[in-house]
């Protein structure tokens, strides 16, 4: 069994929703679809109030190279195109649609038949991935077609399909691998074809034995695709950590995975690619976990994008009294939500409810210089030192010397600190400052 070499922590995985199958969640009465569901420029809305839309119809077009298409997830009438607060709290344009029935674009193949033959050409596949609005569904939401089209002179040797799902609680990828292994494997094969024949590994952590078995079974018609079992360790699913675990290579500081010959894609992205190419279905719904010990029935849903989180939560039994924190994503890197009426996006893998007891931060003590943060940091940084230099005020040159810009914000340091020092909070703020200085210097 393999894993990454530097750092890492072992939080309890709490995969309490793993026995719940993915239930399709009926569309709500009204959806609000964000135009900023991907990294890069928000899409430009191409519908106006009063327009009738079908499920799968384009409602937003890319506004730049790093941008993406957005499709309607429901059928109905556009009620408004207006700025609204998204999950992160940013005001971005949303297309609000009053749902009427559930009428799909007739071009979408809704049958359950598995289509294994990959007939489309490389260029055709790339164009259709772009047109389907597919972005990295592990959370980073980087446009997939850009990642699959390496710049001139760079060649992918490894396609790594990320099924690590190292975040505690989240089970959406686990369930997807158990229920749709064929789609994922075919999606991986399609991406391998685009990249021009490379080794393809589907990487799954050891705590998902059923998923490993299912995907291994689905791999049998594809001799070039292998399943790798990973040790359970956070942040295994981090792109850089996964590349290290699988290939033993490390992405140089400031470089991209493709510079080490690797392309990493999430399993949900692989499934979306399968549906787009073989089923002609754009990305407008995704698997999502609703979980937390305070819920009686943690669930996994297939959720239409733009569904209010409050609606998803209602479907899982509603928020209990004891829930104090609502998190979009996992407990290590997810975002705490201020507005539960914000709507789901392409990167929303989980809605996690934690009680005050589970999430309360204890008061900060003195650093006892135990070095646990240094041992935990998967980038080999010294969080205690970055914290000290940051708080000493203005020591940006020393922060840069100590590689603060390499921080991937995984949270291992803060998670592990016995003195409850808010290491990552401090580092995050000062990392942004240092990056600003570096960018400013590059411009000169």
């Amino acid at each position: 069994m393999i894993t990454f070499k530097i750092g890492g922590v072992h939080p309890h995985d709490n995969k309490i929703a793993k026995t719940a199958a993915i239930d399709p969640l009926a569309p709500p009465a009204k959806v609000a679809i964000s135009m900023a569901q991907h990294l890069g420029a928000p899409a430009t809305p191409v519908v106006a109030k009063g327009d009738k839309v079908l499920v799968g119809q384009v409602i937003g077009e890319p506004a730049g190279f790093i941008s993406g298409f957005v499709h309607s997830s429901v059928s109905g009438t556009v009620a408004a195109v207006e700025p609204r607060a998204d999950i992160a709290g940013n005001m971005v344009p949303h297309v609000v649609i009053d749902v009427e029935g559930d009428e799909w674009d007739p071009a979408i193949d809704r049958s359950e038949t598995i289509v294994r033959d990959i007939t489309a050409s490389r260029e055709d596949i790339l164009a259709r991935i772009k047109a389907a609005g597919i972005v990295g569904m592990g959370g980073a939401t980087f446009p997939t077609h850009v990642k699959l089209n390496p710049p001139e002179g760079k060649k992918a040797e490894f396609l790594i399909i990320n099924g690590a799902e190292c975040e505690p609680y989240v089970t959406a990828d686990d369930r997807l691998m158990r229920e749709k292994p064929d789609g994922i494997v075919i999606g991986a094969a399609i991406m391998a074809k685009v990249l021009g024949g490379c080794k393809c590994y589907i990487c799954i952590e050891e705590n998902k034995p059923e998923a490993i078995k299912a995907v291994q079974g689905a791999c049998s018609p594809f001799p070039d695709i292998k399943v790798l079992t990973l040790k359970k360790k956070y942040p295994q699913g981090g792109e850089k950590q996964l590349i290290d675990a699988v290939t033993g290579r490390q992405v140089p500081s400031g470089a991209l995975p493709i510079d080490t010959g690797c392309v990493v894609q999430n399993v949900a992205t692989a499934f979306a690619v399968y549906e787009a190419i073989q089923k002609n279905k754009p990305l407008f719904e995704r698997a999502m976990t609703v979980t937390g010990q305070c819920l009686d029935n943690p669930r996994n849903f297939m959720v239409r994008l733009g569904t209010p989180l409050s609606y998803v939560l209602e479907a899982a039994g509603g928020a209990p009294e004891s829930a104090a924190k609502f998190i979009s994503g996992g407990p290590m890197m997810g975002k705490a939500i201020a507005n539960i009426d914000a709507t789901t996006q392409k990167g929303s893998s989980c809605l996690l409810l934690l009680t005050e007891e589970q999430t309360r931060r204890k008061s900060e003590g003195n650093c006892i210089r135990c070095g646990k943060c240094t041992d935990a940091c998967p980038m080999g940084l010294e969080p205690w030192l970055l914290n000290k230099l940051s708080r000493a005020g203005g020591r940006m040159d020393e922060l840069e010397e100590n590689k603060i810009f390499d921080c991937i914000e995984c949270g291992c340091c803060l998670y592990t600190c016995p003195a409850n020092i808010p290491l990552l909070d401090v580092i995050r703020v000062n990392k942004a400052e240092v990056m600003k200085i570096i960018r400013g210097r590059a411009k000169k």
Partner: protein
Amino acid sequence: MSKTIVSPAPHIHSEFSTVRLMRDVLIALAPAVLVSLYFYGWNALLLLVCCVATCMACQWFIEKFLLKTTVTVMDLSCVVTGVLLALNLPPAAPWWIAVVGSIVAIGIAKMTFGGLGQNIFNPALVGRVFLLISFPVAMTTWTAPHSWFSSVDAFSGATPLALINEGLKSGSTVQEILAANPGLTPGQMLFARAGGSAGEASAIALLLGFVYLLCRKVIKPHIPVTIWLTVAVMTGIFSLCNPAEYTGPLFNLFTGGLMLGSIFMATDYVTSPMTDKGMIIFGVGIGVLTVLIRYFGSYPEGVSFAILIMNLAVPLLNKYCKPIRYGYGRRK
């Protein structure tokens, strides 16, 4: 949604806390404490109580009345200092020695530097060395281990290292000294028969604590293991070259404060390096200094001095021994 918390990630925290780590150190010290109580009886208990009580009281007083800040006595770090100091005292020492040592340890070595996490030197060792220099007679009057809380007067006995030191000065060879003192076989010392500080009675009890600390992930093995290896290799070479004058590896590993010092004092978080590389250099330094002091110094015992000297090097080791960074190695 009446009252929700919004804060940056991560939203959960590990089970580690300062109190838990300190509690684990105390649990790891328990076997050594019990052995010292078993062999040295009521006086060892008195010293232990005096040390712990004075350390706690001293920290409480300074934080409450001098610094007027939050009282952090309950984080147990001062209790650990107290227990370690007690284990470093001769078991027959008078009670006021424990009180003075504790005041120096907490009041001077720890709190003047800014309290927990800020001190340069290991507080318990500063306390011990202060006492050793100030009250050399009381601090080098040893008692041989005796029976369970017996009322029989303890007879005095020199520590193995002192025996060797004295013997060599009077012109005997190591072999003659060992032959004259049948209690000095490594086996005897492993299971507690040698005289010495209260906590040095049994190497086995200390090693039990070491295993516990490793299992609970409180410490990493780097520092103790490099100290042992360095001492073993260095004394091995010396004793092979001149067995009449230099004691061998087994003798040196299991005598004096080496086990107690390497497992519990050298691994003190605050005063030891943070990276593996730093820890290894730190351990080698302690090992070399210990052997040099034992062989060539005027004190028979050198672990305390070796650790204190290496404590000084820690800020430098932290500055220059960086962890292995991700993404800066050679590209394959």
